[in-house]
């Protein structure tokens, strides 16, 4: 498990600006500021710049169609979703 996570962590590093468009009105400013400060920065979400397929079957279908290789992460465990990070 520790190694699964270490591997996942090693995929991370990037850029994104949290979309705002929310007015920091009376009473809401502190909460929205806290939300922004807690939200992981883009550099920590780099694995979401990768082209993930929902499943191995989906990846193989797309690989054939797009003439691209597949990078398959195999986890020897009963549970784990490396795409979400809950593993």
């Amino acid at each position, binding site marked *: 498990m520790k*190694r699964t996570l270490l591997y996942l962590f090693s995929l991370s590093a990037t850029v994104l600006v949290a979309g705002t468009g929310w007015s920091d009105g009376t009473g809401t400013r502190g909460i929205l500021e806290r*939300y922004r400060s807690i939200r992981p920065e883009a550099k920590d*979400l780099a694995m979401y710049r990768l082209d993930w397929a929902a499943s191995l079957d989906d990846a193989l279908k797309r690989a054939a169609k797009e003439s*691209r290789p597949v990078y398959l992460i195999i986890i*020897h465990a009963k549970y784990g979703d490396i795409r979400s990070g809950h593993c």
Partner: protein
Amino acid sequence: MVRKLEPYIIASWHGHRNDTDIPAAVKAVWDQKFKAPRGRTPGRQSNVDIAILDSRGSLVHSFDAANHQQYGRRGRIESYTADELSRAASTLGLEKRPTKSPALKLPDLQGKQGIRVLLSLDDERMHAYRAPVVEVVPVEDGDWNHLAWPEGERRVSSSVLLPYLSQIYPPGVMDRTNPATKEVYGIKAVEGDLELSPVASKKGTRHAILRGEVRLVDEGPDDFGYKGTLEIVLAYRDGESTPHALRGYFDGLYPRSDRMHRDIRWLPLQAAIESIPE
């Protein structure tokens, strides 16, 4: 390393060696991995392997993801993976293929309404556990009726947020798994009352604040739980009683048991909570 992975379609699979439906590529990797070495002791192995497949699904290259010889040294896995990818790239002819810098695309529900939870555990000892977790949960019609616009302050049970708040548990919860099934204990209940209060509105949108202390309780037999502060801003369009969007956070402490030191470590567990699509 992200750039080296750009040509690939990424997929993950998990399972056990005695499963009945092991994909051919996984079987090929595991046959090699678990083959007893002749005349020597098996080396250390991790539970994560990487398989590189060509566009026809044939196995081109595979390697143990954790590189046990360098395990624990910061940056070693990245450089090791980059080296292995370089080997595969020459076999696949990827060096000549132009790549484009992909945009960040967080998990979503393909335009369907939902909640995204971006979770962070601040574990100073286990660097790997600090990798963010991102989960999305669909919102169905009527799910937010209990968050209808409040004319005045009123109480709302935090249990109505269970589908979203149940995603707030740390990665690597080895100490909170069912010993029989090896599955992680899910969050079964959210306890605590929240206050829902209207606040001043702007630009045709009204806002309300939902806040309070909540306790998340898992499925284990020992009433294990952890607490945190929840604060959420809800946005309502003029003339509509149910919110159309929300943003907020959970800020709590997770008691991780440290078997080595026979101790409990209280780790900051935080989550940004946002409605999607934005």
